[in-house]
């Protein structure tokens, strides 16, 4: 992305630069505006404690959004992320010994096996999605809609309306523990974001993700195995969701149906609000981080100001709409700038 900024543009270069960078500038400006607004409107918002609060609140969304960033960069979508998070979280609890009052016919296993089995479940679901999208050719929008139902159905069968509480020790630590006063879940989210950024920016695979998203046909004509790349991002999406699901169950302290439902919209919103193009090939993890912070500050800040609580959802919807408009508009601006250069 840095090369885009330094490239020489023939006419009106400053203006064209702004036009080209619209998708990066707008989310950052939104973040600064929201931050300044809540800092001014509330005494309790601008405190260290609240800031770590925000980070805590966005961590699970962040891990899901990492996987979605790969998917959306390839111009695909994954609507099954929250359902897969849910089933993976439930699975890891299902394979863990529960207290005697939990009325679930579960299969207690040693912690390591429970974790591996849960990860295997989300990996298999991701592979099924990848197979449907690449080999059969089902659009990812529809394929993952079906996968959402499948994963939700599996969740229902595992817990049968009951609630499980215990998860393996390592998961309990990473989801709900702290180290030197820092929550492990924040460290995990930071780690996922960092590794994903390194993969997308510095590896061959990352380059292929951007190229496939930027122009799928051209990637195919360049001898890139496009189906493999698309299949791989769908599996990455499912694996990230699965990890988020396991940690989330520890974070919430319970495993039950439908507890991840709001994360679908949040994760998609974080990626898109951050400025990653819905048409693929543009954006990345830095954009997703800004998007996560915008959503985190907004959700948290609205709790700190005197506002009708029933208005919150509406406001979030409007912010998302504005981000979508900017996303599509930025794409048009870029196409126009390109046309000038042709």
């Amino acid at each position: 992305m840095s090369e885009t900024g330094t490239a020489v543009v023939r006419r009106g270069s400053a203006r064209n630069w702004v036009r080209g960078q619209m998708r990066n500038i707008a989310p950052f400006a939104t973040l600064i505006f929201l931050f300044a607004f809540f800092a001014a409107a509330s005494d309790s918002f601008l405190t260290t404690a609240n800031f770590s609060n925000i980070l805590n609140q966005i961590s699970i969304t962040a891990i899901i959004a990492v996987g979605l960033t790969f998917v959306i960069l390839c111009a695909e979508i994954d609507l099954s992320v929250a359902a897969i998070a849910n089933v993976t979280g439930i699975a890891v609890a299902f394979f863990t010994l529960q207290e005697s009052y939990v009325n679930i016919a579960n299969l207690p296993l040693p912690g390591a096996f429970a974790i591996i089995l849960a990860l295997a479940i989300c990996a298999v679901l991701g592979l099924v999605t990848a197979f449907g999208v690449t080999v059969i050719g089902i659009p990812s929008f529809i394929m993952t809609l079906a996968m959402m139902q499948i994963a939700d159905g599996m969740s229902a069968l595992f817990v049968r309306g009951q609630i499980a509480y215990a998860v393996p020790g390592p998961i309990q630590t990473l989801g709900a523990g702290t180290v030197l006063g820092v929550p492990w879940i924040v460290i995990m989210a930071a780690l996922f974001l960092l590794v994903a950024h390194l993969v997308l920016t510095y590896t061959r695979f990352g380059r292929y993700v951007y190229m496939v998203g930027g122009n799928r046909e051209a990637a195919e004509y360049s001898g890139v195995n496009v189906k493999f790349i698309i299949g791989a991002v769908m599996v990455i999406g499912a694996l990230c969701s699965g990890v988020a699901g396991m940690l989330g169950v520890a974070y919430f302290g319970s495993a039950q149906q439908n507890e991840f439902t709001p994360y679908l919209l949040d994760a998609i919103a974080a990626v898109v609000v951050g400025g990653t193009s819905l048409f693929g090939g543009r954006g990345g993890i830095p954009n997703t981080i800004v998007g996560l912070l915008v959503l985190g500050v907004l959700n948290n800040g609205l709790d700190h100001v005197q506002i009708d609580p029933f208005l919150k959802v509406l406001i979030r919807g409007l912010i998302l709409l504005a981000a979508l408009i900017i996303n599509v508009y930025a794409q048009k601006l870029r196409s126009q700038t390109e046309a000038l250069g042709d």
Partner: protein
Amino acid sequence: MADGSDTPLLEMIGISKSFGGVQALRDVDFSLYPGEIHGLVGENGAGKSTTMKIIAGVHHDYEGVMKIDGKEVHFRSARDALDAGVGMVHQELSIVPDLTVAENVFLGAQPLTPLGTVDWKRMVRESREHLSRLGIAVDPRMTIGELPIGLQQLIEIARVLSSGARIIILDEPTSALSPPEVERLFAMLRKLKTEGKTFVFISHFLDDILNISDKVTIFRNGRKVLTSPVAEIDKRRVIENMIGAGHRELEESYTGEIRLDTKFDAPVVMVAEGLTVERAFKDVSLKVRAGEVLGIYGFMGSGQLELARALFGKIRAEGVISLEGKPIRLTRTSIARDEGIAFVPESRRAMLFHHEPLFKNMSISVLDRISKWLLKPSSERRIAEGHIQNLRIRTPGPNQLLGNLSGGNQQKVALAKWLTHEPKVLILSEPTRGMDVGAKEDVVRIVRGVRDKGIGVIVVSTEPETVLSLADRILVMKRGEIVREFAGDTVSKDRLLEAA
């Protein structure tokens, strides 16, 4: 029949038309008499399509006078032209493939019931009557997309007729048809002619033109060269007039003999046997030798563009492809690339990343050879700088966005992608289309350089000049089959056109 004594049904006097400073038509006179089939020939860009688009109301910004039935007209739109009885059937059919035959026949003019809903019964009945009157036996309730192309085309002609057209312009109607379908089309045209309908028949297929037309008009460089009754002209003279024989300097460049430097003893790198792709080409076999440029020439729609895609694994073909004696299964493009087959398609947009810098565009097809896991941008830039120098790409540097380059330079980038690690076979589709003379010469020089390194090169084109300027051996494709080979001898443009 053509009858010179009648007043013309349509008359064009002194028509000129330019597109942004480029003169497409100069002072063209053209007359069409009732009940004739009038063939129109000329090379790409000679002006035949522009003339017809003026008649059909597509272009309305021209100089000169057009009359229908002796009255001056100036169409503002295709609708205007249709109201005056002029309809056009384009090469790309404008049927809606998912609708039924009946809906397509009545497209935009469905009969309605008194309630304002579509009168399906009447529509099916009338379209059945209409089609059977034209000798087309088809159930009007069938989805048109499931019918063969030839039948779809007849139905489109039927639609133009049902909308009241007296003059029907057919643009390359036979290019996608099999011989029996061509016969059926011609039978229908002859029948309609006796009913007083008038046709303009634009085609590259001179045999078809001479078979069906009463008169033929030849265009060259935006001018009408000649109108002659078909009975008084033969294929040889049509080609001479198309490419300008008689003007000595033009004759040099067009009918001049070009030596084909065919290397009969070089080792064969690629063999294709019995390749077939439904609706594109069938039973095509060919060999490519190391260090030769194999030109494949054919008119638009002859199947050579699809053949090039099949040889790169972009579309699946039945048949056997082998490389250096080993059969390979090209189920996807990455296999072709790994085996050492490279392909540059005719559309630059389809193969380049416009918002990415040059070096990423050039490295994409060899990334796995540059790095296993981690990218090495400095190596990528160095490779790109080498290509920029060797191929004389005009750009400030490898970080420049591809979209900022001119078309000719973009084409060189498309070639550069495949030259970092030499492929065994390089397939180029329309490598010089839309380029200026200087850029064309650069491409010829680059392709010759690639050939001299011992790479087998296939050049596929619909432009005879492209094939003639590059090839050491030429195959001619016609309606999905290879019909002629020119090797080890001389060839000229007129003989190439005659073969196709």
